[in-house]
């Protein structure tokens, strides 16, 4: 059941994104930006937490979840460190994924050969 909920949640999020890409001027890059910011806002007003409870990885793995992780990180950092946490929380919570993406991409570029895009 947990897997069905993850599948449905992620499916709905991705289908909505596809409609936005097809029907508006949002390019994939803008979709990513929009979703991370929207994730922070939705978490801030308390609307995303229930989605995460319902969908599990189906809610945290799409980029809305990236914004959710940032916002949750901010809350936690403020609880621990006060004002400074507003600045450190977002990046601290997502540091693993960001560092991994940069480092693996760099290593990949060193190892693999650049292809023609044809």
């Amino acid at each position, binding site marked *: 059941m947990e*897997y069905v909920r993850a599948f449905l949640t992620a499916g709905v999020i991705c289908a909505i994104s596809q409609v936005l890409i097809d029907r508006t001027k949002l390019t994939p890059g803008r979709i990513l930006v929009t979703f*991370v910011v929207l994730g922070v806002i939705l978490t801030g007003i308390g609307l995303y937490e229930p989605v995460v409870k319902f969908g599990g990885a189906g809610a945290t793995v799409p980029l809305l979840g990236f914004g959710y992780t*940032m916002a949750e990180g901010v809350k936690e950092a403020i609880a621990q460190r006060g004002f400074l946490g507003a600045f450190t929380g977002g990046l601290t919570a997502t540091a693993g994924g960001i560092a991994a993406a940069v480092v693996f991409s760099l290593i990949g570029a060193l190892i693999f050969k650049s292809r023609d895009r044809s």
Partner: protein
Amino acid sequence: MDITNQEYKKLYQKASPPSPLLKDASLAFVTGGTICTLAQAIRNFLLSQGLDEKTAGASLSIILVFLGVLLTDLAIYPKIAKFAGAGTIVPITGFANSIAAPALEYKTEGLVLGTCVKMFTIAGPVLACGLTASVIYGLLYYIFA
């Protein structure tokens, strides 16, 4: 031919093929759903190994990013993305793809000014806007909560 804009629009709609919107959205639904169901399985495995919620979440991100980068560099991810659209863009594997693809493609322009600069073409704006949003949220939260 002397026709109004509205008449032209009707003619145009008649001549256009049916919108692929439903097909696109269904493919995005299934692909995105599948990626996240796999992610849920990895997460459950990590939890079963005794990792706490937060460690499991962060480890899951790193594993998915690794897979996203690897499949991009092996030229497999773009093949899936061709029909999956948003289903491969929106999950965190798509974020990894947005960094890995230009990193490899612009290798020819040098490691620093090619790879290291271009890898942030999409990730840069995502981080800039995401971080700004999180700091604004943090300030509001600090003041009002």
